[in-house]
């Protein structure tokens, strides 16, 4: 793209004369710049105000996310400012959406503190989203150089080691969130956990807002839950777990709760995304030191990830969380009750599970990303899914995923154990059929019906929910191939 007033002012006395220059003139627009292997790259979707040139807007984003302020400052000349200036190097109109542009920005590695997502976030999204010349801005994707990736320890456990510890291979893991979310006493809560695990689930889960309320203090929950977990383990001969949510008001209290979970023999703890980047990294370090799986519930993300014109894409959040070091991450279901275009959601799964992520525009991936051997995050599909969708879930997401059926377990007409058994039988039958070479996308419903002939709980699940689907048009879709939600 070309526009007037976009060339950097090279003459130093003019460049640094007191007053206001366009960001492009200050040097934040560099169309000839070739990004270096060691640069951090970002692509933003921007909607400039009417009359604001897209290139100048892109330069402003580069400026405000690195060294610039609104006016010229002579103190730039005390620094190697060419290095520290982020460089907008490319601006493309968004296909089919007038007024929106993708702008590509390169940041020198020296701009970032090693091993700190708080620093990355403060730099890249600190200022620019409130910037008046833009109506809206969205951080679509980022590329981290492998040199920077290696400054993060990453997931404390990862998919491979979690499976080895759980002794569970070759199929998605199964979970359920304890319902109702609020109000159960510790003893009643543990009952739900026991029934779900004994019926065949691998994990049960605290919900995001279960912390330590008057109806159930956290220590009571932990004690009853661990009785349930161990009882179910003895009843099945399997390793089982419950994500004990340690989210609390202070870091010290979270660590205290995590320590108690460890003393009780829990294999997993959980935090909510709302605790913040630094707290997440601290919990990750703690989990690494204590052989604990860290489950991340992405509570609150929809406030900034869902609308396409403004905010931060979940693919960026997923990248930051893999660097922060979480083991499980809720990444969408595509077929359930919550937002999620299937290909966009697959893009999130790739970020969690790839050794090397490839550019894939229909899946929303703008960059190649070398993960530098960082462990892989187990994605979690949770929210409005049921046994009747098992073939779709297995086809979309493969084996390395936790499928969480909350209502689809606890709301079963024959009880929680039956609900859990229905899900486990549906899953194992589908994996067996897939491995035998059957086309589960086409034959899935037949495979489920055949298993239901000998498994009454599965028959009841299909009778109750078989026809339920959530067909709404997703908002967060790729601009490169429009897709509709699968039914």
């Amino acid at each position: 793209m070309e526009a007037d007033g976009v060339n950097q002012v090279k003459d130093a006395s003019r460049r640094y004369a007191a007053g206001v220059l366009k960001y492009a003139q200050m040097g934040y627009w560099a169309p000839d710049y070739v990004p270096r292997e060691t640069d951090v790259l970002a692509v933003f979707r921007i909607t400039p105000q009417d009359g604001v040139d897209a290139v100048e807007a892109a330069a402003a984003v580069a400026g405000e996310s690195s060294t610039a302020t609104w006016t010229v400052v002579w103190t730039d000349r005390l620094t190697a400012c060419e290095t520290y200036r982020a460089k907008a190097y490319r601006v493309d109109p968004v296909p089919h959406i007038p007024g929106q542009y993708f702008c590509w920005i390169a940041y020198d590695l020296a701009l970032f503190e090693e091993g700190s997502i708080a620093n990355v976030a403060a730099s890249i999204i600190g200022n620019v989203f409130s910037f008046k010349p833009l109506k809206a801005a969205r951080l679509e994707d980022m590329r981290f150089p492998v040199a920077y990736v290696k400054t993060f320890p990453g997931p404390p456990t990862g998919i491979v080691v979690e499976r080895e510890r759980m002794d569970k291979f070759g199929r998605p893991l199964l979970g359920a969130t304890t319902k109702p979310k609020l109000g159960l006493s510790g003893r009643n809560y543990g009952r739900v956990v026991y029934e779900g695990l004994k019926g065949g689930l691998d994990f049960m889960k605290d919900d995001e807002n279960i912390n330590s309320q008057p109806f159930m203090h956290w220590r009571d929950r932990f004690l009853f839950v661990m009785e349930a977990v161990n009882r179910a383990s003895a009843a099945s001969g399997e390793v089982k777990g419950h994500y004990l949510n340690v989210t609390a008001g202070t870091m010290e209290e979270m660590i205290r709760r995590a320590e108690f979970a460890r003393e009780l023999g829990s294999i997993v703890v959980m935090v909510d995304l709302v605790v913040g980047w630094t707290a997440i990294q601290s919990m990750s370090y703690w989990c690494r030191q204590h052989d604990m799986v860290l489950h991340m519930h992405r509570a609150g993300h929809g406030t900034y990830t869902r609308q396409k014109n403004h905010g931060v894409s979940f693919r960026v959040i997923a990248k930051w969380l893999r660097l922060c070091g979480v083991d499980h991450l809720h990444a969408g279901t595509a077929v359930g009750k919550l937002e999620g275009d299937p290909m966009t959601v697959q893009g999130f799964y790739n970020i969690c599970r790839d050794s090397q992520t490839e550019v894939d525009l229909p899946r929303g991936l703008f960059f190649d990303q070398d993960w530098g051997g960082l462990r892989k995050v187990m994605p979690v599909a949770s929210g409005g899914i049921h046994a009747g969708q098992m073939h779709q879930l297995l086809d979309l997401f493969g084996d390395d995923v936790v499928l969480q059926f909350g209502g689809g377990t606890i709301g079963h007409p024959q009880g929680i154990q039956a609900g859990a058994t229905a899900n486990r039988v549906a899953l194992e039958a589908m994996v067996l059929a897939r491995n035998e070479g059957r086309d589960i996308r086409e034959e899935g419903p037949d495979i489920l019906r055949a298993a239901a002939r000998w498994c009454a709980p599965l028959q009841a699940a299909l009778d109750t929910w078989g026809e339920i689907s959530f067909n709404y048009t997703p908002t967060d879709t790729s601009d490169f191939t429009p897709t509709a939600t699968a039914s």
Partner: protein
Amino acid sequence: MRITQGTFSFLPDLDDAQVARQVDYCLGRGWALGIEYTDDPHPRNTYWEMFGPPMFDLRDAAGIMAELARCRAAWPRHYIRLTAFDSSAGTESIVLAFIVNRPAVEPGFRLLRHEVAGRTVRYSIESYAVHARPEGARYPGHGEMTD
């Protein structure tokens, strides 16, 4: 009870034709198969005995099934599982493991509780087959222990 370790334990026991199809699936993906057996199916008993090392060079299902038949003949009342290993970078671990032989009666596990300070309990799991007597057979005259 029925121990539900392994990928397919919630399904009816697989017949040989079904097992062979899973073996084909594994071989088709370049995985090596191993046969392991134990009479101590504790959930944390990671290292079952190997019936020979993983069969890296045996690439045909009939050969694997013949080995499995030999293992079943040698250990008819043990748990036997087929384990598939994927050596590719980024995985280098087990990618499928399922039970293909189990004893006729599975007495299951006893949950031991050691009450300590506060209401904290230290739990241990112990196999009845290894020790003691199972649920329903602990009080002579009021239950049966079948064998």
